[in-house]
């Protein structure tokens, strides 16, 4: 298990409430679907965003919100494996999270979750998302490239209904402490890792962005 939090120095330096914007080809494709259809079932597993809730519900979609990164930090999930090494109980995590009927969602917004989540939870989480998505459903995820560096900012993403995405730095309070810090990038997936992660899905499309991010749009 890697050190989860970024440096406090960096956390002190940055302004958490400043919104940034970036163009996103993946969000552009998702927005086209959301703008052209009604009654879709959308699951947002990023940090809770009132903007996203407003956008989805105003456009006649059903919205489910579940901040899986925060949920994965629950101290009750920490356990020791047979070798006495600290680990996270992925079975318990999935008993408490992503509990939905099979083939329930048309769209899943994963954002940058796989890059910041504890590694042992990533594959079980993607497998569960496969189960709860409808065949033909879309999943959007962002992956950092190696050039991004470990202190890459973890963002809350706000959809705008276009291919522009608003972003806000995320900070959490460390469990048991009052200080808020930004989560630390846990790893960098290469293209083969990403393809393996989504191997059960029907198709995968990569969009390379300029800001050391690969956007991945996956069809269930």
């Amino acid at each position, binding site marked *: 298990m890697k050190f989860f939090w970024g440096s406090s120095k960096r956390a002190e330096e940055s302004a958490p*409430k400043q919104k940034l914007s970036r163009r996103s080809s993946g969000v552009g494709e998702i927005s086209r679907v959301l703008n052209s259809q009604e009654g879709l079932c959308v699951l947002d597993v990023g940090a*809770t965003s*009132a*903007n996203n*809730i*407003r956008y989805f519900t105003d456009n006649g979609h059903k919205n489910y*919100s*579940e901040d899986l990164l925060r949920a994965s930090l629950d101290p009750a999930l920490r356990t020791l494996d047979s070798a006495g090494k600290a680990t996270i109980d992925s079975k318990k995590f999935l008993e408490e999270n992503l509990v939905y009927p099979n083939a329930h969602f048309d769209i899943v917004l994963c954002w940058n979750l796989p890059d910041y989540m504890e590694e042992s939870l990533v594959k079980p989480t993607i497998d569960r998302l496969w189960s709860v998505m409808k065949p033909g459903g879309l999943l959007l995820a962002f992956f950092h490239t190696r050039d991004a560096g470990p202190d890459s900012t973890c963002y809350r993403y706000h959809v705008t209904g276009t291919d522009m995405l608003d972003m806000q730095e995320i900070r959490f309070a460390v469990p048991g402490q009052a200080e808020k810090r930004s989560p630390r990038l846990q790893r960098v997936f290469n293209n083969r890792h990403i393809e393996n992660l989504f191997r059960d899905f029907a198709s995968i499309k990569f969009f390379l962005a300029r800001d050391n991010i690969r956007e991945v749009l996956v069809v269930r």
Partner: protein
Amino acid sequence: MDAPQNNELANIGRSVVIKGDVSGSEDLYIDGEVEGNIDLRSHSLTVGPNGRVKASVNAKSIVVLGKVEGSLIASDRLDLRKSAVVTGDVTTQRIAIEEGAFLKGKVDIQKEAGKGTATS
């Protein structure tokens, strides 16, 4: 946040634990623990920063600073402050979510006269 001083406001203090249904015709502030359904149809509920509620809640407006586990129905407005931790489906006309609030569940915005808003 201190409990608001208001004669029309019932107050469940932080050391109070209630197991059972709560209903009333005045605003309610909970900073203790409540396990049961809460029905305040035309009044407001505030769950204070120390509040722990395991219940289905039905109120005109709901403000959450503490922890709620259960479905929330706010006929007018739901306000999740930055310290809020809400696990359950929410139904309301208007919702405001501060940065840092945690919400896990289905969000259903019921529009009145064609209007529904969510702000952050």
